[in-house]
């Protein structure tokens, strides 16, 4: 089995998570008070949902082809597919967190202010514990979506073994070379990982688990 590609997919998904979740929390927080620009910003951030991955990949190639980021080429490299993955995942990460922020009663925020909390303290001690389900949901979606991403990764990264050839591309490769058994094994593994990610997130969401996170306050 092509374990390199599985490892690469997991590495990409974890890197995407590590960057995307803090970025998603920041974007969702800023969107709360975006004023008249909010609708435009939301539309822009939701664009990857409706845009064909090949179109995104094409513009990425045109825009970043031949360019480097701290000496690392931006196309046909891991850095390239990571940046592309971040762009593709923007709506999957931001929207659940944004919904969670919006679900907080505005009076709760006002209560935090009249309790003398600074904006950072209000975020850290009041808002963050209240949006953790949104963050979990965003993490599960981003992780599972990155594992399955195909079009944009293929366009931006090509299929360089060990560098950009992720599991979903490896499956495509196997099928092209009539190795259906190999494709089947990889598919089953990806299915299992995705299932665990989603089940974990749904399990934590279920009503019987709706207790508050524990921790020192």
């Amino acid at each position, binding site marked *: 089995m092509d374990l390199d590609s599985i490892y690469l997919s997991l590495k990409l998904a974890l890197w995407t998570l590590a960057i995307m979740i803090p970025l998603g929390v920041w974007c969702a927080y800023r969107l709360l008070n975006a004023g008249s620009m909010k609708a435009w910003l939301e539309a822009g951030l939701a664009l990857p949902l409706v845009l064909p991955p090949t179109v995104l990949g094409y513009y990425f190639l045109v825009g970043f082809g031949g360019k480097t980021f701290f000496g690392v080429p931006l196309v046909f490299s891991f850095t390239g597919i990571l940046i592309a993955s971040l762009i593709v995942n923007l709506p999957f990460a931001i929207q659940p967190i944004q919904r969670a922020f919006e679900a907080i*009663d505005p*009076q*709760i925020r*006002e*209560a*935090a*202010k*009249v*309790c*003398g*909390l*600074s904006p950072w*303290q209000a975020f850290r*001690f*009041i808002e963050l*514990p*209240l949006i953790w389900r949104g963050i979990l949901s965003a993490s599960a979606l981003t992780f599972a979506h990155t594992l399955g991403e195909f079009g944009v990764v293929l366009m931006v990264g090509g299929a360089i073994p060990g560098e950009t050839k992720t599991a979903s591309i490896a499956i495509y490769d196997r099928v092209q070379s009539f190795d259906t058994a190999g494709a089947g094994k990889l598919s089953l593994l990806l299915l299992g990982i995705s299932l665990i990610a989603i089940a974990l997130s749904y399990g934590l969401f279920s009503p019987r688990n709706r207790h*508050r*996170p524990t921790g*020192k*306050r």
Partner: protein
Amino acid sequence: MLKLQISQTSPMPLQIQLACLPGELHALVGPSGSGKTSTLRAIAGLMGVDEGLIQCDDIDWFNANHAKVNVNLPTADRSCGFLFQQYALFPHLNALENIAIPLRKHYPDSSERLKLAQQWLDNLGISDLSQRMPQELSGGQQQRVALARALARKPKVLLLDEPFSAIDIPTRQELYKTLASIRKELNIPILLVTHDLKEASLLADRITVIDQGISLQTASPRVLFQKPRNSRVAELVGINNIFRGVFSAGALSLDGSPHVFQVVDKGKIPAGQKVAWVIPQSGISVYAQSTSRTLAATVNQLSSIGQIASIQFLLKGSEVLVNWEASSAEIKRLAIQLGSEAHIEFDAQQIHIMPLRPINDPRRLQESGNTSAL
């Protein structure tokens, strides 16, 4: 002491002046959308205003004139406790942790914070609720926890935004008692927003009546009910015998009737001035027989609720309606029934005369600055 003089034109007009002394419970009353809550929010810094002054213990919290903002402290730096109508407890924290949150500013040690928070729970008689989550508490219990949280940071002003409106009546009575006892200990200005006049007159030392964003009158409940500044205040405080007439050197006429009353001329109203006037319930007497001082009337409407009856009389030879409330026993004694005749006496001493100004008169804006009763 809390001093407030704020104004703005949009999104809603607001022109409020008031002062609240330490230990004073000052109620803001008025119809829905009159600007009561906006006033409270402006004091806490939760809402901006165009210009004016908000000062607490001689420290400016807000100071702006001609759209130039000199001082505008953020909410967190205004030492105020705020009680919300819907409690606004932090849903992920238990009662004790909720109260510990405002202590974060001055007590970095979490065990010390929790100890102080427990003391507040003890003070308010809810020690046993410390580990309960907000959703496990009744409305009254939540409001007590919210009150403890508002007081925990030792605020210089306590702001109460319709805190009792979502609570059942027996629990409300208990909370009134709690409020009455803590206000003695606190000795800070307390502002209470309510649309319930009964509640305001029961709890408050002084009441400011607000209508369409303008403070119309500040007075003690007794003065407010007996001597409203103008006919709009009289309407807002629920006085149902508001009449119109002309005042001329001690003679007060009653529009729609030939009657004239002799009242004391304090020299404040020019002769021939059209006025509104009110008379409290205690100034109206009803008799079965006529005397030289009574006016003949017929019973126009009669409705009784329990032991109290509400009667509307029509003064004979006029279109003037007089409202009166009496006990069922009194109704029986006077043999009052629909269409029957009765004789009404107005105690001229208790008549209060007010300027007559339409509600949209811009002059009202100017006079709102002067809060003394006529």
